[in-house]
């Protein structure tokens, strides 16, 4: 079955099982390996992407859900890594191992799109489903606030 979708602004036709997890299609079919596989059960957030601007965990999302939709991955957040979140991530040295950061940034980007000036509590609540094994949560929160232009 052919699934038509737009990924990071480019149209694709994928001849895949419609129940295939979207993460598989992104990484193994399209070669977009910036999105990570963590738990495979929507519990860690490493695979977070956007479908039409809404956050989804791509490891449990069947590719059919993205049919006819706009998919954004970390590679498509900005063409040159200049998204305010990416710049704040670098400025504050957020990543340790870095495995979770694509998911963290995609969740944070969706948060800022809906709440441009989130409070600490709102950041914690919205990013509660993104685990960081290195425990850089304080830096993650600081980077989100920096990207939002908050003190």
């Amino acid at each position, binding site marked *: 079955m052919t699934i038509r979708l737009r990924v990071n602004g480019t149209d694709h036709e994928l001849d895949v099982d419609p129940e295939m997890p979207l993460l598989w299609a992104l990484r193994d079919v399209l070669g977009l390996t910036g999105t990570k596989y963590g738990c495979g059960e929507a519990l860690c*957030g490493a695979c977070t992407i956007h479908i039409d601007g809404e956050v989804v965990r791509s490891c449990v999302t069947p590719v059919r859900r993205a049919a006819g939709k706009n998919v954004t991955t970390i590679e498509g957040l900005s063409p040159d890594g200049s998204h305010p979140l990416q710049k704040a991530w670098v400025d504050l040295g957020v990543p340790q191992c870095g495995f979770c950061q694509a998911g963290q940034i995609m969740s944070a980007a969706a948060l800022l799109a809906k709440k441009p000036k989130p409070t600490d509590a709102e950041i914690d609540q919205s990013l509660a489903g993104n685990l960081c094994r290195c425990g850089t949560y304080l830096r993650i929160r600081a980077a989100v606030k920096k990207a939002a232009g908050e003190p």
Partner: protein
Amino acid sequence: MTIRVVRVAGTVYQEWMLTKRRGAGLGAGALVLLIAFAGCGGRSSAPASLPLPPTSKDALRAPEDFAGIPDRDDRARALFVEASRVMLHPRCTNCHPAGDSPTQGNDGRLHDPPVARGPKDRGVPALECTSCHQDRNVELARVPGAPSWHLAPIEMAWADKTPATLCDQLKDRKRNGDRSLDQVVEHTAHDALVGWGWAPGHGREPVPGTRAQFTALVAAWVKEGAACPKDEVKR
């Protein structure tokens, strides 16, 4: 939890007893109807027992099993108590929480990852219910799903309710999604999230009986006047 419903009215004495084990729903086998007819002229007779047909925690009694209850309101009350075994099951109450977070499992533990109700009962930005829950169960990942997965509004909280309080709530349009009783029956019969309770996927215990049986009970309760159980003691 033990619930006793006792009514003394004229010559009729009735008692229902239900036992609820946390995580296993109401103990279906414990629903008993006792009817005692006091004798005339000051004489009294020994209580006569009219037990409902036995059932299991996985099954529901049918509306016709309640036909032997002579009083219409009492019949409606008994029908509701039977139907409440579905509504107070963890598959339902986990997403009808009294707080701002859903629960999960048969033990009602806090949802993992920690998620919040949000302003529209669908989560918060970047962590919506549908960020993870799909339109159907994802068996490989064990994630439950159904169309439009979301929490019941806080005014429709069912967790830790008794059948009596649940019944009052279900009849109150301010706390039932502004539905008439006929619309409650319709919702019971056709809403996709309600239907998930009988097909929860991945080893989860489904609610008792079948959807058709549950709908028949709720419809019979409405048809019999929709009286609510009274005088519960919760302990």
